[in-house]
């Protein structure tokens, strides 16, 4: 349980920023 909690919490911390970075890349590519 502890590992799952830590893993989930780390995803919640890191993934949004990574997703945002990817979406920005995609958006820029689309605009170009």
């Amino acid at each position, binding site marked *: 349980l502890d590992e799952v909690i830590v893993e989930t919490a780390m995803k*919640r911390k890191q*993934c949004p920023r990574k997703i945002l970075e990817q979406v920005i890349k995609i958006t820029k590519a689309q605009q170009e």
Partner: protein
Amino acid sequence: TPPRAQLLDAVVETFLQRLVAAGSFRRFASCYRRFHQLQPEVTRRIYDQFVAQLQAAIRDEISEIKAEGNLGPVLDALDAIVEEARGQTEPAWRPSGDPEADTGSILVPCAQQRRAALLRALRGQRDENRRLAQAVLAGRERIRALQERIQARRDAWQALSQDQRELLTSLGG
């Protein structure tokens, strides 16, 4: 509330004090009664050593955990984050457990920028088209004028050639 790092130290110190108070020398001596009767000073020294070692071991452990998790600066950072939220009363957002729903808010600023960029591009294209449309209309006008001039020249030449033919005809007679 005091800074979290200080609170952590204070809480551990209180724990230690109360633990030592609970494990008093009197209690210690009563558990080793016979030995204490035989060697009271040694018993006292052993008890003092016991307390000193236990306190040192526990304080070292806390220091080690703080160093390992970089807990000092992390707790200070949390103090700062809480301080920033001072005045807030409503419970703040928390992850819903649905990552897609939670990611929505993160992407809103990006989507707003995209919309703004598209609006700019649309306005730019519209202005360009307005300019182009005027150029096209002006161009059509110029072409119409050229066609009229050519028509006029052609009519003039045709009239001329008609006159010529009439003249020749009349001359021919």
